[in-house]
């Protein structure tokens, strides 16, 4: 069979469904596009199957076990879109030899490909995000020196996901001399009155928001209720999509969020999608077409399929095994030209993985919700590696000792 099987862990029901649905749609539609337009990847048809996780780790593991062996060569890669599932699978994928594509989420230290050969935290980690957010604040204030003595609070989802950025922010706080305060919100985040009252009294200069699902819109509403200026609230890229702002209505106007490089809106690839997928009635998307999370789903699929394509260059145009796809990821080089060719120009900067670097890029932009639409308001910031690299190194080393992993020597790999 000339079929490449790719599993999709999704959550289209449950508390995080409003955010899970557009992402899953984007993921699926891009694969459909490849099949419809190109007949797959280099003639190998993509077959995919969704499995509902409901954002629950144990369901995610079950889905993983169910799908990992499907298709002629097994699953090409997994993308769980959940930090919890990512953590659980990180331990399993080396045994099953399947790469894990966690674009913009998951373990920040898994950027270190020597210790995490199977994890690809493509495009950006939470530490990237945290660093870029501070850079943007500095720019708004007029320079890094202005950060000194300022107060920045982090309102976060009380889970590994929400806690990831704290390390990077603390490092930044030490460096730039601002007061940093972390304020947890219990899952799922429907009640945040006391947190925002504290903010009202504390009057921080900025609030960073690390929420997911209902927590985001609730935060924005509470910010509005306590009169905290929305312009001073900066969300991570998982807090910067349409479902996060629409429930709060006009109260969201002014709210800012990071972009995982891309925003909403139609680009070249969307024209292809409309022509080959939407018009044929094969689209999963409905009104979420070209929304933020939908576009992110597209990019997620694109990076995955490009990795497969890269692998095929080495192993031939046939279905790839997980191990081969891993090689493909590690040697993936998405140049600006290639990105343009794929129709993603404007959504993504060049991206290049290597043995040491499983993140491939560390730039991000800022967008702002004007009450009706997201508007890009900044140019690309590059995360400061002098701060993040030691963090990655330290944490990866810790993981390696804990798990008794001997790190690969990347200098020896071709």
């Amino acid at each position, binding site marked *: 069979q000339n079929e490449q099987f790719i599993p999709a862990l999704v959550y*289209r*029901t*449950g*508390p995080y*469904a*409003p955010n899970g*649905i557009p992402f899953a749609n984007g993921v699926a539609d891009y694969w459909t596009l490849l099949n419809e337009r190109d007949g797959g990847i280099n003639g190998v048809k993509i077959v995919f199957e969704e499995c509902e996780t409901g954002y629950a780790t144990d369901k995610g593991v079950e889905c993983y076990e169910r799908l990992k062996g499907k298709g002629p060569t097994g699953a090409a890669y997994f993308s769980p879109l959940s930090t919890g599932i990512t953590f659980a699978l990180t331990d399993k994928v080396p045994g099953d030899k399947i790469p894990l594509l966690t674009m913009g989420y998951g373990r920040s230290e898994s950027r270190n490909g020597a210790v995490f050969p199977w994890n690809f935290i493509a495009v950006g980690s939470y530490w990237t995000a945290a660093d870029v957010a501070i850079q943007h604040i500095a720019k708004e204030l007029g320079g890094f020196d202005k950060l000194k003595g300022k107060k920045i609070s982090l309102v976060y989802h*009380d889970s590994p996901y929400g806690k990831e950025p704290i390390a990077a922010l603390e490092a930044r706080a030490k460096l730039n001399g601002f007061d940093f305060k*972390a*304020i*947890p*919100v*219990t899952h*799922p*985040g*429907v*009640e945040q*009155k*006391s*947190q925002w*009252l*504290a903010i*009202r*009294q504390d009057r921080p200069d900025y609030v960073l928001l690390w929420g997911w*699902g*209902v927590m985001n*819109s*609730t935060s924005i*509403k509470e910010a*509005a*209720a*306590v*009169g905290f200026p929305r312009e001073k609230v900066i969300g991570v890229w998982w807090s910067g999509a349409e*479902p996060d702002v*629409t*429930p*709060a*209505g006009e*109260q969201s106007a002014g709210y800012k969020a990071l972009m995982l490089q891309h925003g909403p809106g139609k680009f070249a690839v969307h024209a292809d999608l409309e022509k080959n997928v939407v018009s044929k009635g094969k689209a999963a998307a409905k009104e979420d077409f070209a929304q933020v999370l939908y576009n992110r789903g597209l990019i997620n699929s694109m990076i995955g399929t490009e990795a497969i394509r890269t692998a095929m260059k080495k192993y031939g145009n046939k279905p790839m095994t997980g191990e081969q796809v891993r090689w493909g990821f590690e040697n993936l080089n998405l140049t600006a030209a290639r990105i343009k060719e794929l129709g993603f120009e404007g959504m993504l900067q060049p991206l290049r993985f290597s043995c040491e670097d499983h993140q491939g890029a560390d730039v991000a932009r800022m967008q702002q919700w004007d009450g009706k639409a997201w508007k890009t308001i900044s140019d690309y910031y590059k995360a400061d590696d002098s701060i993040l690299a030691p963090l990655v190194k330290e944490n990866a080393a810790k993981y390696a000792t804990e798990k008794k992993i001997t790190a690969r020597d990347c200098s020896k790999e071709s």
Partner: protein
Amino acid sequence: MIAFGQFLEVLVSGLLAGVLYSLVALGFVLIFKASGVFNFAQGAMVLLAGLALVRSLDFMVAKGLPFWAAIVIALLFAAVVMAITAWMVERFVLGPLINQDGLTLFMSTIGVTFMIEGGAQMLFGSDVYPLRLFPSDAWFLFEGSFPGGILVSKIDVWGGLIAAVLVVGLALFFQKTKTGRALRAVADDHAAAQSVGISLNWIWFIVWLVAGLVALVAATVWGTKLGVQFSITFLALKALPVLIIGGFTSVPGAIVGGLIVGAGEKLAEAYLGPFIGGGIEYWFAYVLALVVLMARPQGLFGERIIERI
């Protein structure tokens, strides 16, 4: 003065937040008091009511109806949906389970929860749907005395008013009417209630209907606060400590419990949280409930647990 202003602000917002929990807790109380069933499905019913309301409202507005007319029709539609639910629950689940013990009935309401959650999302979608029925900005009171004033959310005040009206109405209903008495009888002993000619089927339909309508009211308030979406079902967990503190069987208890829980958890989060790490609201409410129970095992206003031999 600032400190006192802050304290007052946290207290007031806590009290009001608590009353909003009470709105959900009331639904539990109703069904427990009237049938001895701990209705796990109350959170799901709020979701269902909210979805039915917001989806039909959106539909009607899209059709070009004036907003007020759309609201009236949508409320009616949601009420009908709740009535149908009540009827089905009675007919297919509780009816056949007459005379079973509390745990079995509790478990069956969990089955009902699954069905409602699945059905509601299948019929009305699992996205987030904004609802705007109440103003969601705030008043700032006593700005003269406290810098920045005391913040009071308007929607919380609305919620509080509605809850108060509901409580008075329901309390009168239970204590003063023949049906109210019958409901309490059913809660004590199904078989005996049947033997004196109380129709359990009818009673259960009525009480689930009323609980459904209370859920609809809760959905209007909470839907405005959160947007109508699956997470609304988690309110049930916030309502539980309210329920225990007030006592499962007391309608006014639901309000008092709400006030205590709301004020307690917000004050704890504000004044204790910073020292031990924050995010303590959830368990604090439950620990508060535990402490109250140690003093009064049936909650503050619950009926005495009869221990005789």
